[in-house]
């Protein structure tokens, strides 16, 4: 395949027009010792027909969530994506455009992002949202950087019940930025009250946490505020259909993995990094922010604003290095949230919780299986302990057509996560219980 439209005549005439004798001549000034004296060691190109055949074969070597019943979670969830979401976000004027540097030609994306920011503020109960970050993990990193910048401190307290992926990401980026996360213990599956000293930049709690459990977030955030540290909540954007939002719990900054808002599972990406904060921190926000303003004739329109925070203006003093972000996913999230509306969001959250509760009860009753944190309230995900090796149980359950997981260590022992979205029905849950019964016993 080739998408360059040049005919042989075009090439010759264009070369002549710019005074070059040949294609090679375009490169005549390159030092010969860096020029590759051979073809790339790649196969020859393929026709579209041959390529799509190959891609279909690769795709067929995966089992996908249409081929098993998905109870997996751990940061990515099989919520239903209504057809309207990608019918809209997939419009080519959106996906073939770039960052709206020329706002007059880009009001479509700009307005969509403005609406996205508005809805994220509503979800979080906070005052300002940016226009997207890469994903949940990097959004957390950016939030921590905001806290570091705001407080001038470097100690970061992170709950032990936060997803290990968040721990890993903070450690990676902390090595450059000069901090290392320290644990808030969570022996019982929820974070414990912790002393927050006045050298702490941020207290970070995931609520619901990696085990699905509901955290005493307000109390933890209060101790943060007492030490003038920033309170950061990692939240689930759908949970706030039924759970009190971060802003109400006292979080100063809320971050989330936005995959659940109309984005496909995509084997982990592209997803959507959500960050929202209070107005006091607006100039420390990373990434694009869209603002409403007026044009020369006084009609309102949208632009990228507060660009003085960003790398293309502030360079080494920028709040973040992010440039290309996940705009299209934010557009999809906007469509999705409009589809849900307040009633849909509440109903969806209600169903996730009720179905998870039903599944948890039934699984807990199985021999060889028990809730890891009995009595601890959770949202749509919960942790099991199995007598048999968790990995074996997971595999045997998948063989029967049900995906559970991931397996997350807690106090040195594996906890097997099960999450239940609105997409699952009672039959499927009962099927999982049957499969688990076999798997846990064998």
């Amino acid at each position, binding site marked *: 395949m080739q998408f360059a439209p040049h005919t042989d005549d075009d090439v010759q005439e264009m070369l002549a027009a710019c005074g070059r004798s040949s294609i090679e001549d375009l490169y005549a000034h*390159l030092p010969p010792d*860096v020029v590759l004296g051979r073809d790339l060691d790649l196969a020859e190109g393929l026709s579209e027909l041959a390529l799509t055949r190959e891609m279909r074969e690769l795709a067929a070597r995966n089992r996908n969530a249409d081929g098993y019943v998905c109870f997996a979670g751990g940061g990515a969830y099989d919520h239903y994506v209504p057809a309207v979401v990608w019918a809209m976000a997939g419009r080519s004027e959106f996906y073939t455009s770039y960052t709206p540097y020329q706002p007059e030609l880009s009001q479509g994306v700009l307005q969509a992002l403005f609406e996205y920011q508005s809805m994220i503020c509503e979800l979080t109960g906070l005052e300002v949202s940016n226009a997207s970050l890469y994903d949940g993990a990097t959004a957390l990193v950016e939030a921590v950087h905001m806290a570091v910048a705001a407080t001038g401190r470097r100690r970061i307290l992170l709950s032990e019940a936060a997803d290990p992926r968040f721990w890993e990401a903070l450690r990676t980026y902390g090595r450059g930025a000069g901090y290392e996360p320290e644990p808030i213990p969570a022996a019982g599956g929820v974070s414990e009250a912790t002393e927050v000293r006045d050298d702490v930049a941020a207290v970070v709690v995931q609520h619901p946490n990696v085990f699905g459990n509901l955290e005493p977030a307000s109390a933890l955030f209060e101790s943060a505020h007492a030490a003038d540290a920033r309170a950061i909540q990692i939240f689930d954007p759908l949970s706030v259909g039924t759970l009190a939002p971060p802003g109400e719990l006292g979080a100063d900054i809320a971050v989330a993995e936005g995959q659940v808002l109309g984005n496909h599972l995509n084997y*982990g990406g592209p997803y959507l990094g959500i960050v929202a904060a209070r107005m006091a921190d*607006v100039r420390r926000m990373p990434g694009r922010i869209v603002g409403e*303003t007026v044009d020369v004739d006084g009609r309102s329109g949208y632009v990228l604003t507060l660009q003085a925070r960003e790398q293309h203006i502030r360079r080494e003093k920028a709040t973040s290095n992010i440039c290309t972000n996940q705009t299209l996913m934010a557009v999809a999230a906007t469509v999705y949230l409009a589809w849900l509306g307040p009633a849909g969001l509440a109903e969806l959250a209600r169903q996730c919780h009720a179905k998870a509760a039903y599944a948890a009860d039934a699984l807990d009753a199985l021999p060889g299986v028990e809730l890891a944190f009995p009595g601890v309230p959770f949202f749509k995900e919960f942790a099991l302990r199995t007598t048999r090796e968790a990995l074996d149980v997971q595999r045997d359950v998948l063989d029967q057509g049900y995906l559970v997981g991931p397996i997350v260590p807690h106090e040195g022992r594996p906890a097997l996560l099960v999450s239940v979205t609105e997409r699952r029905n009672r039959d499927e849950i009962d099927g999982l219980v049957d499969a688990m019964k076999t798997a846990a016993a064998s």
Partner: protein
Amino acid sequence: MTGAPVRRDGPPLPSTLSALSRPGRRAYSLPELDVPDAPVPPEHARATPPALPEVGERDIVRHFTRLSQINYGIDTGFYPLGSCSMKYNPKMAEAVASYPGFARLHPHQPEDSVQGALELLYRLERALCEITGMARATLQPPAGASGELTGLLIMRAYHAKQGKPRSKIVIPDSAHGTNPASVTLAGYRVVQVPSDARGLVDLGQLAKIVDEDVAGLMLTNPNTLGLFEEEIVGIAEAMHRVGALLYYDGANLNAIIGRVRPGDMGFDIVHMNTHKTFATPHGGGGPGAGPVAVSAALEPFLPAPVVAFDPDAGRYSWDADRPDSIGRVHGFHGNFGILVRAFAYVFAHGRDGLKAVGERAVLNANYLAQAVAEAYPPAFEGRPMHEFVATASGLKKHGIRAMDVAKRLIDLGFHPSTVYFPLIVEEAMMIEPTETESRETLDAFAAAMLQAAREAVEDPDLLHDAPRSTPVGRLDEARAARELKLRW
């Protein structure tokens, strides 16, 4: 051709979803709850629901259809944003990325259930290493800037492992803003090296700057002026001599693909932007992907996990056991859906096709550069590669700035080029046509640029008042930043 388009007098923009909202209206449908209801404990419950808009599905469809129609994309027209490689995004790549066998994979699936995905990642990694002349790559970084930071953290880990942590990174004054921003995030200090009269790295200045506290040099080649750094081998030697590493910002890889490899120029770390070189869509600002390839010496430091292949078992797996790894840079495996598109692009083109991509991109830039040179001379003398930086400074005496030209181009039917970047060029217009544009498009664009230059003399208000063909005219950015209105 001369009459100015006049602004529409209809409502400039659709209402917001919030303005369309009516209490009780809804688009969603969900099945009846088929298990016992179980409310969350009251102390955790939300008191007031979020004020999301209440609209019907048809409202949503008309709203976003209209928004899309007032948004300019590559599918709408020419989009010569310098440094962005706004090439045609093949529809076949969109089609394959939507196969459920890719789009419906859960990131926590066991390896045995995702052998196709792992094979794709593995083969893409191998291809990218061959293209860049490097040993191994990580596909985790979700964009170029993320790739930069990943690369710098690898540098950091490398020097630490050598027992000699360093504190400075050298970048040219023409560098993209993400470079210095990433340097800071990696805990380094930026040292800037000026460009010389040719628009290339000033070797004399570089020699003065470089010492044993320099961890590395970040460079694009061709550089952001679209010029090839001809002394790259010398530069590389100078850096390596003091134990510093060379980082290749792959934003401009399109110019040299299949012909020159960063590894062969002496670079140790390379990021690529799949949304540039490999035609994955820009998505209105993302998602992209920023794979990072490194030399053998740096392989141990790559983010974990990477895909491993056991040829005997014919099995792919995630290799997470990498003690020197800098760790995870993305929540999962990177922007997999974008990598699928990049894979499709790379293997669709193959060795000949990729080389032709670069050739046509360079041909187009050379052709367009000469076509506009009369009114917009190149900022530097050298031969352009895949893009060129011209200057509109000649129009300043008529009170016309590069931004005015850009806005006039909108009324003439085109997305403007990048303007005012690189920062070292006065009234810069950084123009990257890419290989997927035809000669006819280039001719039409050149004609529009020349027309704008004539109008600058004859009828400058056409430029000052531009654009007039869009739903809104020039917007008050100062006011936006002053009177923050960031939500409904």
